């Protein structure tokens, strides 16, 4: 029988039991909608994570003092060390892959302008920092090397701080007081958005390291050039593991760490942290997709159930069709086409619902909508496959009927 006729018969059969058909489709509709929504929302979240990684500054290492602690306290006495600005310079000098090595200090302080004030993070930086972290100047200028050296009272403001203190007004040239020390704002920074940890990266004020060490944050350690963290950014295209090893080697030499002893410093790959979180998210996403797939399978079982009922109800029709010349294959195809049609209609409705859900979530969460057409096609194909898989047994049962018995059925 030509496929057009099979389709006509199938649609007619579905129309006769309209309510039943719709209820049967529901499992497929929900399953397909859930799978597509999950994958699409997941892709949006992934894009958001990628954006966060790039805002962090790509290929970034954080080098910190202190033993890396893995599941327990590890502070062997005598191994304590403090990183210095000299370490940062040494790293950059000795490892050619390093683009920038920025020693920093960090602390919290109140920033006051007239009668408004704002509590923010104060970052002591040198000229490497903006490069290392991928910050860009919005208005004004970067700190001059001369200002860094002399510890001038100049500051760069993150967009959040600038907005909180100056509103829409121009911050450049204004004086802010940090711990009662007046600083002149020389530049503002381009907005970076939330970090992967959920911190507002724009809530920051940057001042020369030397100035931070003075009355703002105080000295970080025994030596005058001690810093808390060195940010190291590596040129694109180099193996991060390799560079990490080199950094460790240089520092071990500088601090004369005996072979076999633990590193008295920690190196963390920042994009790795984000990626770990992304992986966790992906696992979660896969879990949800698996749950959605289960709903598809349950929907398929519903299809099988209804097709079995349909075959039983239409035994006489099957008998008659066989009597007038339908072969087993004709009957098999008829019921298979019916099951697949049921699933495909369900699949299309599921896709429509998924579109509504996806755009809804994307609008609320302000994620980019990444509708993935391959997934849509795949979901449609999958629902068709479910129709074939779960429709096959009932269809075969129909095709195997004995025409005499079937005709005799009341």
């Amino acid at each position, binding site marked *: 029988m030509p496929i057009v006729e099979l389709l006509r018969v199938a649609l007619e059969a579905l129309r006769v039991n309209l309510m039943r058909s719709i209820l049967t489709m529901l499992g497929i509709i929900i399953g397909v909608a859930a799978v597509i929504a999950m994958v699409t929302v997941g892709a949006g979240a992934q894009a958001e994570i990628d954006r966060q990684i790039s805002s962090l500054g790509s290929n970034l290492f954080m080098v910190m003092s202190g033993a890396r602690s893995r599941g327990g306290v590890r502070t062997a006495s005598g191994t304590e060390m403090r990183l210095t600005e000299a370490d940062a310079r040494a790293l950059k000098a000795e490892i050619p892959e390093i683009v920038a090595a920025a020693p920093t200090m960090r602390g919290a302080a109140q920033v006051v302008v007239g009668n408004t004030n704002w509590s923010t993070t104060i970052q002591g930086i040198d000229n490497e920092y903006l490069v290392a972290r991928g910050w860009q100047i919005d208005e004004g200028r970067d700190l001059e090397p001369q200002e860094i050296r002399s510890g001038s009272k100049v500051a760069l403001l993150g967009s959040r701080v600038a907005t909180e203190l100056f509103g829409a007004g121009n911050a450049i040239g204004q004086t802010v007081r940090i711990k009662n020390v007046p600083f002149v704002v020389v530049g503002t920074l381009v907005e970076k958005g939330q970090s992967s940890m959920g911190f507002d990266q724009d809530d920051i004020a940057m001042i020369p390291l030397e100035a931070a060490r003075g009355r703002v944050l105080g000295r970080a350690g025994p030596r005058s050039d001690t810093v808390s963290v060195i940010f190291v950014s590596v040129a694109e295209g180099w193996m991060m593991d390799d560079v990490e090893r080199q950094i460790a080697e240089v520092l071990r030499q500088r601090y004369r760490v005996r072979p076999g002893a633990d590193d008295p410093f920690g190196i963390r790959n920042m994009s790795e942290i984000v990626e770990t979180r992304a992986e966790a998210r992906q696992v979660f996403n896969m879990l949800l997709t698996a749950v959605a797939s289960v709903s598809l399978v349950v929907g398929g079982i519903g299809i099988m159930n209804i097709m079995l009922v349909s075959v039983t109800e239409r035994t006489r029709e099957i008998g008659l069709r066989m009597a007038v010349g339908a072969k087993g294959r*004709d009957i098999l195809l008829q019921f298979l086409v019916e099951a697949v049609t049921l699933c495909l209609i369900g699949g299309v409705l599921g896709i429509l619902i998924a579109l509504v859900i996806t755009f809804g979530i994307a609008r609320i969460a302000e994620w980019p909508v990444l509708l993935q057409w391959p997934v849509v096609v795949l979901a449609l194909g999958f629902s068709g496959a479910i129709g074939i898989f779960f429709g096959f047994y009932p269809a075969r049962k129909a095709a195997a009927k004995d025409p005499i018995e079937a005709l005799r059925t009341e």
Partner: protein
Amino acid sequence: MLVCEDLHKDYIVGNETVRALDGVSVRVERGEFLSVMGPSGSGKSTFMNMVGCLDTPTRGRIVVDGETVSELSRDALAEVRNRKIGFVFQQFHLLGRTSALDNVELPLLYAGVPRPERVVRAEQALERVGLRDRMGHVPAQLSGGQQQRVAIARALVNRPVVLLADEPTGALDSATGVEIMELFQELNEGGITVLVVTHEPEVAGYARRVLRFRDGRVIADERQPARMTA
């Protein structure tokens, strides 16, 4: 045209073997009008199913229109039914919610006849049974007699060599039954071979030849020169 040689059909029910057919040999020539009679359980329905290629014998040979069908596969039998046999049932067995025309087209669909030709042939068959103006009606909109006429048109549409009717008047009132038998006579006079299974003597009376079954055997094979006419 239709040859049955020593047909046997055994059914195994529990431990017992039931002999539904026990050595039946019949020859039917083209253009005959044959009625098959007998009490229930006499084997007449089994015989009918064999001749209609719905069933195969345990032993023996059936030849329909020169083709030995007793050893064919299921699918091959379906093809023979489609090309050579026209069935008429007591319960009509029309597809509900499907127009008379579509019902009649059904055998042509399985024969792979293209749509335009299907429609023409189905219309011709419906005209032949006097339902020219009821083609678009669904079974629920037709009387019992009209439904049986649709079923007869469906049986005729593939130009079968033999029309098999199983109690064709069983579900109809007697006046309508007479009309249906009249239609069979008319078709027979047009050259179609007709086999009617019935337990009603009046119905059998329209045939030229009566085959009587009992306990799986043919006990009488009578020619009726003075048959009834409607």
